[in-house]
């Protein structure tokens, strides 16, 4: 039992502290080995007895310490007192350890089960795979066998073919030999047959009893009524001559026919050539590149063409014919190339890429398709964006409309402003008039004041003179009188001032030049007294001028625009003109 427990022990330790696994087992083992005899001794009896308490304690202590637990018993001065708390703790720890060990054991068992089942599964799959392997191997061998058989068959067939060929050769040889044999036999037979015929002929000729005979009542004349002629060399020659004559006449006839045919064909050829020349000459300007390509040939051919066209159909000499055919051939080639080019152009223009790709392989075709699809998508996108842009553009139109509207408003306002301006102008005029009135009044006042001042001065002088010892001087008297007169007059004028103010315009002609500088100064002082707000006066006209300026600017702004527009039109017209010119060119 302890063995088994010991056996179980190491994995427990392992589980608890995996890292210390290397060092732990060695002392334990040492101990177990060392304690084995002890154990053996106590195997039958209990572990602890009265005699070996100390030993047991030390052993347990050792064990416990080896497990990394606090020692149960402290060797303190030989007193073998056991620390109950430590023991209990230790026991608790041990129990805990044990529990943990059991749990891990369970886990391990489960794991083991799992792994064993896994192993089973793997074994199963491996066996299956092995079976499959076996099967495929068998199949492979079968296939190999079949291949071998087929190869054998092929070989045999090849052999057969060879044999057949040989057979064929043999048969051909046989046929040939038989044919030659047959021909030989035939010839032999024929010869024999001929001999027989000869013999028969001889026999029949020799036999007198039944001879060939002609029995005619009376001879008839020849169909042509002539007498038959003797066979002479002359007749022979005549026959020959006749024969050659018929042959000659036949050849003659045939030649005439051919001549006729040739002439007709040549006529057709000429016609064709003429047409060709006309076609080629008409398309010459458009085919300059081609012209350049075979310029030298062209030059030569040109000559030839016209030469041959000069040559009549009646010229049958070889040289002329050659020339004719050559020129025709050349022109034909040119026409062909032209037509081909036209064809190419047409195909390029009309069907273009798609047609070309038709000729190309499927892949490129598909590629092209993809590309085209992409293009379509792009085009769709374009269209969408264009739509959007259009929509966006429509809002600027609104703006324009609004601007137009605002223009309308402006016009209205302008109108309004003009009206206002007019009223203001009127007001200004009124004010101006009033101002003039005021200034006149002020001038008059200053005049009167001056006069009054003078009067006062004279009066003061008079007074002073009257007080001074120089009383008998004439001048002050005079002046006094004058001033007296004046005073009275001023009094009177002062009394009649309002009247003067109104009447003044007619009288003030003479004094005004004199007192202009004065009045100009005093008017500024006068304004506040007259309760006239100079700012108002000064700002109002300013505003008006500003307004005018604005309007003028506005007008100025408009005019260049119009001008521009006009310019644009002019340019456009000029453009069209130039365009027309170019097109006409």
């Amino acid at each position: 039992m302890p063995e088994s427990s010991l056996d179980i022990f190491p994995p427990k330790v392992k589980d608890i502290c995996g890292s210390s696994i290397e060092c732990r087992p060695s002392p334990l083992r040492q101990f177990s080995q060392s304690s084995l005899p002890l154990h053996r001794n106590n195997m039958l009896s209990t572990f602890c007895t009265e005699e070996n308490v100390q030993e047991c304690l030390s052993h347990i202590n050792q064990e416990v310490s080896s497990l990394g637990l606090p020692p149960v018993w402290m060797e303190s001065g030989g007193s073998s007192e056991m620390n109950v708390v430590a023991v209990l703790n230790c026991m608790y720890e041990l129990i805990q350890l044990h529990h943990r060990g059991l749990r891990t054991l369970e886990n391990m068992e489960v794991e083991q089960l799992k792994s064993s089942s896994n192993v089973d599964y793997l074994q199963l799959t491996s066996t299956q795979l092995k079976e499959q392997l076996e099967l495929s191997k068998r199949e492979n061998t079968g296939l190999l066998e079949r291949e071998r058989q087929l190869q054998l068959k092929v070989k045999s067939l090849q052999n057969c073919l060879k044999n057949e060929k040989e057979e064929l050769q043999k048969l051909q040889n046989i046929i040939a030999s038989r044919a030659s044999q047959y021909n030989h036999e035939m010839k032999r037979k024929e010869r024999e047959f001929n001999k027989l015929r000869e013999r028969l002929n001889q026999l029949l000729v020799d036999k007198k009893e039944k001879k060939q005979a002609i029995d005619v009542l009376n001879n008839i004349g020849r169909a042509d009524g002539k007498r038959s002629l003797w066979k002479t060399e002359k007749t022979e020659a005549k026959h020959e001559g006749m024969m050659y004559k018929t042959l000659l006449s036949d050849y003659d006839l045939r030649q005439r026919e051919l001549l006729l045919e040739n002439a007709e064909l040549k006529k057709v050829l000429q016609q064709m050539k003429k047409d060709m020349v006309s076609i080629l000459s008409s398309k010459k300007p458009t085919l300059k590149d081609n012209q350049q390509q075979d310029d030298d040939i062209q030059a030569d051919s040109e000559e030839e063409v016209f030469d041959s066209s000069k040559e009549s159909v009646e010229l049958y000499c070889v040289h002329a014919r050659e020339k004719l055919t050559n020129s025709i051939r050349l022109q034909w080639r040119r026409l062909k190339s032209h037509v081909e080019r036209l064809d190419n152009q047409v195909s390029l223009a009309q069907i273009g890429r798609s047609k070309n790709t038709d000729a190309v392989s499927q892949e490129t075709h598909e590629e092209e398709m993809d590309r085209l699809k992409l293009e379509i998508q792009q085009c769709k996108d374009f269209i969408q964006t264009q739509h959007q842009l259009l929509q966006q553009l429509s809002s600027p139109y609104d703006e324009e409309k609004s601007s137009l509207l605002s223009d309308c408003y402006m016009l209205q306002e302008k109108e309004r402003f003009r009206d206002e301006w007019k009223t203001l102008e009127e007001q200004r005029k009124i004010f101006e008039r009033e101002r003039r009135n005021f200034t006149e009044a002020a001038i008059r006042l200053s005049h009167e004041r001056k006069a009054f001042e003078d009067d006062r001065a004279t009066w003061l002088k008079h007074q002073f003179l009257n007080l001074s010892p120089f009383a008998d001087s004439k001048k002050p008297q005079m002046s006094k009188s004058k001033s007296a007169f004046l005073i009275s007059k001023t009094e009177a004028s002062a009394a009649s001032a309002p009247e003067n103010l109104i009447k003044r315009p007619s009288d003030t002609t003479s004094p005004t030049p004199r007192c202009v500088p004065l009045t100009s100064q005093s008017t500024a002082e006068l304004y506040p007294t007259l309760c006239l707000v100079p700012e108002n006066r000064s700002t109002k006209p300013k505003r008006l001028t500003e307004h005018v300026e604005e309007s003028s600017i506005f007008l100025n702004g408009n005019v260049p625009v119009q001008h521009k527009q006009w310019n644009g039109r002019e340019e456009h017209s000029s453009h069209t003109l130039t365009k027309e010119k170019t097109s006409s060119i």
Partner: protein
Amino acid sequence: MNFSEVFKQSNQLCKVSPDGKYLATCVQYRLVVRDVSTLQILQLYTCLDQISHMDWSSDSLFILCAMYKRGLVQVWSLEQPDWHCKIDEGSIGLVSSRWSPDGRHILNTTEFHLRVTVWSLCTKAVSYIKYPKACQKGIDFSRDGCYMALAERRDCKDYVSVFVCDDWHLLRHFETETQDLAGLEWSPNGCVLAVWDSCLEYKVLLYSLDGRLLSTYSAYEWSLGVKSVTWSPSSQFLAIGSYDEKVRILNHITWKKIAQFEHIATINNTKAVVYKEVEKRPAVGSDDLSLHNLTIGTTLFNTQSKYEICPPPVQVPVVKPDPDRANPKIGVSTLAFSSDSRYLATKNDNMASVVWVWDMQKMSLLAVLEQTSAVRCFQWDPRRPRLALCTGNTKLYLWSPAGCVSVQVPTEGGFQVQSLNWHCSGDTLILLGKDQLCLCYMDTDQEDK
């Protein structure tokens, strides 16, 4: 179209004189000469035996009657009924007898082709030509009657002798490059001689009148070759029908093939018109047996037939020949050019009920005539492009570019047309039955309309 009454004849011996005035018919051992227009008997001659061959002289003055079994030839004069001439070939035998083109000589071929005997009626003179070859067509006279070409066989080699018919002077004698010469034919202008080999080898040789070899033509090797050869009346074309069911046309300048007409069982050519003869029996009781109907129909001539135009493709009935038997029934055996050389009519032996008409200008198939039974004979009108044909029944069939028509011969007693001959004017057609004959008058006015 009118028909005369029926006359008796035997061995289908019935010929119109070359001038078109007289009609000679043989009945057993009697020779009857009638006026073609009135059909009245002008002369009646009695021969020594049953006549096996009869022929007019070229000047329409003499008639030759050959009795091959007896080795006898009797000549009768139309102008002098009591004039007579009898040629006895004796024990050497007789297989063929013919007039020379001048109508004053008779050429007899003896049995076993021992020789050709030339008898002169003017001088009673006799001359022999040895070694004539026994073949399909061993003798041919040129159309102008000046020359005669004769195939000969000496020392297992083929030769051709050209004689001047005037005095039987041997003009040319030359060896031909043939294995086994089968036939020769002068071109209509008399300047070219076409010579062809036997069916074992496809070979056509063209010789000039003076014996020069002009050209050799061979379409293929090994399999059976030429079956028929015909010149066009214009001497422009040489049509060669062969066992491969094709007709090849050679031109007269280069002697090369310019066209090839194939006789294919399925006609897909949309430009060709296919006429199909459809037989219609008069309504009979439904309880009658069809077999009974058939026998009645053929014996009592109450079947009606008409042509229907079939749209292509048309399947032509084909009989597969027995490959083990000699002379297989396959290939183009009959060729005939119309008088204006514009059309060519052909017959392929394994499609016996079909006549093909080809356009020689377009070199293409023009019409196909599918008959209900095998075609026995066809011949072109000597004046117009009109083809007459018979199939051994009671009807006469005519084709022209305008269309096709079948005519019932309105005679009693079962007149089955076995063969036919055109009168040289093209207005009359002589129909030959088994032992009867009948004249068919074309309604020229109606035709013209």
